[in-house]
């Protein structure tokens, strides 16, 4: 994902397609507003922001406490001793450092599933947008309709299918079903339709470029904002997935961090003193949210417009 972060913002492409703001720089619209209303609006925003950020602040604070501190000190402020590094060290030793294995699994599944789903969506979106083959509208209609099929309804049949082929309890059991992203195809088609002019493709073909070269050298560079958006959505989707890995994985070594931490919580709630690892749950949860939160912060300019693709006529 980081490869995109350094590129210049393709602001124009974004603007033409999503309609996101030409007029962003039109100067403060608030000029005509009275000061009182703007203070009211800001107070409202601050209250909202506090509601949304407080649990994350709590997680950050909790990650720095040992189990005694979690029970005994104020929830929203630091304990006397700073135990974060001790917790990290314990994450390396508890059950042979399985936490890091889980985190690695999450990365693998999210990356393989997310990148794969994005590649399939780019290709299919381009095919649907720029080629007029027979049956196109019918097939696309079916795909669009399938956006409304709840993916969790597919988990149990997928489990039964995969177990027949003997790939249950392997990384493939999570990665392969994660390649499915009908919504990604829809987004890529809508975006490609507007962002890549037919004339440019024709010009490239007349210049003798083959279909593959036309796709890679002409179309692909123009699709970057949509690609980042679809990539983020599908990586988040796979990283978030809970039902599928819960159903298809039983080997503790293969779990993603979400299922693993939930398992620790269930054990800690049910178990006796030795199985209670509250400090590892909080610090593990905190570490696991850092990568995605940072990605979203660094890729702001892409997703802020990109998430609205397809919803603006």
């Amino acid at each position, binding site marked *: 994902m980081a490869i995109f972060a350094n590129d210049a913002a393709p602001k124009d492409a974004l603007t033409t397609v*999503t309609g996101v703001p030409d*007029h962003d720089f*039109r100067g*403060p619209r*608030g000029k005509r507003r009275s000061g009182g209303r*703007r203070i009211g*609006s*800001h107070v*409202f925003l601050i209250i*909202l922001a506090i509601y*949304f950020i407080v*649990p*994350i602040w709590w*997680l950050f604070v909790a990650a720095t406490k040992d189990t005694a501190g979690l029970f005994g000190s104020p*929830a*929203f402020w630091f304990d006397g001793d700073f135990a974060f590094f001790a917790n990290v060290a314990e994450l390396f030793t508890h059950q042979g450092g399985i936490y890091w294995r889980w985190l690695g699994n999450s990365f693998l599944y999210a990356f393989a599933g997310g990148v794969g789903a994005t590649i*399939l969506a780019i*290709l299919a979106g381009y*095919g*649907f947008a720029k*080629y*007029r*083959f*027979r049956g*196109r509208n019918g097939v696309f209609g079916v795909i669009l*309709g*399938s956006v*409304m*099929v*709840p993916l969790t*309804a*597919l988990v*149990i*049949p*997928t489990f*039964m*299918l995969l177990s027949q082929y003997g790939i249950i309890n392997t990384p493939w059991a999570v990665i*392969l079903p994660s390649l*499915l992203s009908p919504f990604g195809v829809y987004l890529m088609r809508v975006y490609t*339709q507007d962002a890549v002019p037919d004339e440019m493709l024709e010009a490239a073909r007349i210049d003798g470029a083959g279909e593959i070269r036309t*796709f890679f050298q002409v179309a692909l560079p123009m699709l970057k904002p949509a690609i980042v958006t679809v990539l983020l959505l599908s990586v988040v989707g796979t990283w978030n997935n*809970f039902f599928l890995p*819960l*159903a298809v994985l039983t080997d503790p070594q293969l779990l993603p961090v*979400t299922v693993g931490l939930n398992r620790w*919580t*269930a054990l800690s*709630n049910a178990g006796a003193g030795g199985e209670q690892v509250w400090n590892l749950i909080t610090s593990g*949860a905190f570490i*696991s*949210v850092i990568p*995605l*939160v940072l990605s*979203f912060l660094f890729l702001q300019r892409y997703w802020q417009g990109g*998430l*609205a693709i*397809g*919803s*603006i*006529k």
Partner: protein
Amino acid sequence: MTTQTTAAAPPAATQGSRAPRRPRGSRLEQRRQRWGWLFVSPFLAVFALFLVFPLFYAFGMSLFTSTLATGTKFTGIDNYVKAFTDPLFMEGLLRVAAFAIVMIPAQLIVALAAALVLDSLTSWLSKLSRLLIFVPYAIPVVIGALMWSFLYSPKFGPSATLFTAVGLPTPDFLASDTVFGSLVNIVTWQWSGYYMVVIYAALRSIDPSIYEAARIDGANGWQTATRIKLPMISSSMVMVITFALIGTLQFFTEPVVLRNIAQGAIDAAYTPNMYAYSLAFSYSQFNYASAIAFSLGALVFAGSYLFLFLTRKQSGLK
């Protein structure tokens, strides 16, 4: 959503086969057709393998019943008759319907209010708030639910300290009559920011000269918001509500995580998805679980289709 895109394709393309053809044009046409299929085929393979096939497979499984005594037997729609007279499944359905009625408006009101306020401000504080409100979306649902379950917990949670400080009795967030609200809060916290970003982007795409016209006509801020902004972003609102609806009806992760500490309030059949999961993996009733999963899928599909049909005017879908 599609009207625009499908209409954009020149009608000549679909009539290509019927039109009198020149040899060269037809060869080019055929070549293009092949490339079109080539580009979409990798996705179609995954689509067939992991969506179409599992759906048919689930439906097929649901028509059989297997017991130790008689083995696997074709029983037709028996499993569906059983499902729709099964109080556990029906209670779960009613419960997710209740969640949809409470949770979707809650998320929508927060997202819309935040987006409208953000759209009227340009300060650094508003930009920062926009980010902070969105951050929960980047946090996995499991972790979000774990965090809230800590905060709700009477053992760790700050609630005891907070409520004692103001002299009130500490509420139990995990009792059977309060856990509903506790779950609504988790989902609202997790998803409102995402919906806000979508609505905000739609608001930014409105041509500001309309506001000038409205101002000259004497519209105040409230009137501008309700009579101009809202109608103009209705297609985004329809999309957001559809997603929220699909997500709510397949409610699973949050109640499963909260069940760790609230076994008494959340049973194994709390939502239809949880019921299907426990039937399949705790009781190995795969045929009946398939019938439940397929019924839920069909109901969600029908529900969101109905919603899109009823709002086709607002969304521009036909």
